[in-house]
């Protein structure tokens, strides 16, 4: 099982409830805006603790309210590409990319610069990046942190088709060659159909 | 070289005490370390166990306070200097007033105020209030006062012409070029102004007693007199 999720949570006045198991490969979370997709990624990443439930990724239990297990976010080794970027504004692009660097990174620094096309941005401050440039740096930062699984929240929105294609290829390679579990949020039907092995509707 | 004794002295004695310390040092003694602040602050420091040698207060009350706390070496308290109280006016608007019973001080003030130190807390103010009361004019100025936290701030107000009259010590008036003495209060109009000195029980410096005696000796007294202090 890649993901075994059992989540009961209330955010504001909206209840979020999910029971899902997904096998190897890429699992797409599908649902309308506001359905709770980002909230679920946050819970799997360990940023938000569900009110109740259990979260198991690749056989490891990251959270279990009944057993009082809650692995800290810093030890979950999720490669989380946030919907809202969250580059560190006080570090240049290079420092952002290297922030979580980990020996186990599936791709080398150079390879990542290359396929994301961000080699020329290394000395820039995040505030000077265009929308798509910032998004690519965010993806690079997550991949360089040596993740055991990926949480991708609309990672390809605001990228041009050529770039999209390249990054999709890399994502496919990671799930195939590295057997990396991936939880993927997107509204693009074509994208989901191409990439997803499982779909969890919300 | 041995350190000189630490002397805590009232701020108003700064120049005179410095001159005395220089003279003492010229006799091949270590120069005393002089520390000036308000007598109240110094007394509190002594009470909190400060390791000092001599205390010179501008105020008998604070010396009494320290004595009651048992922090004075028995038999070392003595009156070191005296002073006179004067009425001053700005040099730019000089004024002479015969200081006597019922003097027209309120009229002389006009719409201005009488600057003096706070009679509840500062010694110069205490003497000033007593003197004005003895002359029967306190009530005529009681609501026309500008009270300072020390003699110096009173002096500034008169120097700047913000107050037409002020009550300060003769020593202060003498040191300032911007005020003139309008009159001197009769010694009988207030309790004698005395600056007591004493050695503290915390004193360890072997030269402390020597310097104390020097201050009370004729050469020491002559130095103080140069700055306008009278014999106690």
């Amino acid at each position: 099982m890649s993901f075994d999720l059992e989540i009961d949570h209330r955010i504001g006045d909206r209840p979020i409830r999910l029971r899902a198991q997904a096998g190897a490969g890429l699992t797409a979370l599908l649902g309308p805006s506001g359905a709770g997709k980002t909230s679920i990624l946050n819970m799997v990443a360990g940023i938000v603790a569900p009110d109740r439930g259990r979260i198991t990724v690749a056989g490891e239990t990251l959270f279990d309210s009944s057993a009082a297990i809650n692995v800290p976010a810093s030890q979950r080794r999720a490669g989380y590409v946030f919907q809202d970027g969250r580059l560190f504004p006080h570090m240049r692009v290079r420092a952002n990319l290297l922030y979580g660097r980990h020996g186990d990174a599936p791709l080398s620094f150079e390879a990542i610069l290359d396929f994301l096309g961000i080699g020329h941005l290394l000395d820039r401050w995040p505030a000077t990046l265009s929308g798509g440039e910032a998004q690519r740096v965010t993806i690079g930062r997550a991949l360089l942190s040596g993740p055991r699984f990926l949480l991708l929240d609309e990672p390809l929105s605001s990228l041009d088709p050529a770039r999209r294609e390249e990054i999709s290829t890399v994502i496919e390679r990671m799930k195939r060659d590295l057997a990396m579990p991936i939880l993927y949020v997107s509204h693009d039907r074509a994208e989901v159909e191409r990439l997803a092995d499982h779909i969890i509707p919300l | 070289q041995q350190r000189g004794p630490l002397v805590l002295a009232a701020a108003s004695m700064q120049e005179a005490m410095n001159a005395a310390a220089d003279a003492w040092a010229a006799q091949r003694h270590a120069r005393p370390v002089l520390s000036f602040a308000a007598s109240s602050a110094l007394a509190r420091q002594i009470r909190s166990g400060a390791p000092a040698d001599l205390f010179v207060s501008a105020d008998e009350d604070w010396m009494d306070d320290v004595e009651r706390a048992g922090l004075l070496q028995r038999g070392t308290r003595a009156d070191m200097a005296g002073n006179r109280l004067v009425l001053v006016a700005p040099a730019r608007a000089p004024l002479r007033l015969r200081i006597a019973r019922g003097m027209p001080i309120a009229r002389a003030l006009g719409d201005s105020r009488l600057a003096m130190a706070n009679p509840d807390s500062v010694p110069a103010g205490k003497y000033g209030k007593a003197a004005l009361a003895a002359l029967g004019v306190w009530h005529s100025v009681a609501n026309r006062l500008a009270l300072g936290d020390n003699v110096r701030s009173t002096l500034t107000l008169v120097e700047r012409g913000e107050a037409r009259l002020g009550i300060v010590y003769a020593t202060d008036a003498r040191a300032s070029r911007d005020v003139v003495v309008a009159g001197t209060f009769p010694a009988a109009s207030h309790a004698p102004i005395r600056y007591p000195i004493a050695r503290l029980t915390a004193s360890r410096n072997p030269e402390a007693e020597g310097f104390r005696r020097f201050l009370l000796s004729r050469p020491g007294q002559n130095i103080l007199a140069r700055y306008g202090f009278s014999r106690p």
Partner: protein
Amino acid sequence: MILSPEEWSIVALSLQVSLVAVGLMLPVAFALAWLLARSRFPGKLLVDALVHLPLVVPPVVTGWLLLLLFGANGPLGRLFEQALGVSFMFRWTGAALASAIMAMPLMVRAMRLSIEGIDRRLEQAAQTLGAEPRRVFLTISLPLALPGILAGLVLGFARSIGEFGATITFVSDVPGETRTLPIAIYSALQMPGAETAVTRLAVISILLSLAALVASEALARRAGGGRTNHVL
């Protein structure tokens, strides 16, 4: 402006006192700011009030309280003397302590303001990248709070350079130990006609803090880099 040797030593002492005061207070103030910005606990308001205390009561009262607590007979004074061999009375260490306490509220407020402005989502992002709390704090929170830390340092340093009331009440005016710039200024102010000396010393104070100002602006600019805007 050429300084006399005495003025030089006063400047050096003032710098020593202020730098030690601000340096020692920096981590304390940051910890307090962090606590007040990030935690909710019973008695938080009390801590907040205590932090502001040195601002609210006149400096002489703070000095008096320091005397009661850290004087030779005070509970904390004894503790420091016995545990660390540090004594405060009439020592520059006492002047630094007084300055640090007086600077505290300004430093805490400025830092707190910046800490409250930190975007928590960036700290979360750092966590997901494997940073444990210590690293998140050092690499994200602390640098993001830098503008407040710098502002706190400038305010604290300026306040230290100007601190007078608490210092003289606590540790008096001892040349070479506690006679910092403002105390020297005060002494000079007590002497009629010493306005030139006062002005010289005041100008030195201003130049010192101008230097601090320039240094902080330069630091802020260097650290600021591209931070003027958050992105995406």
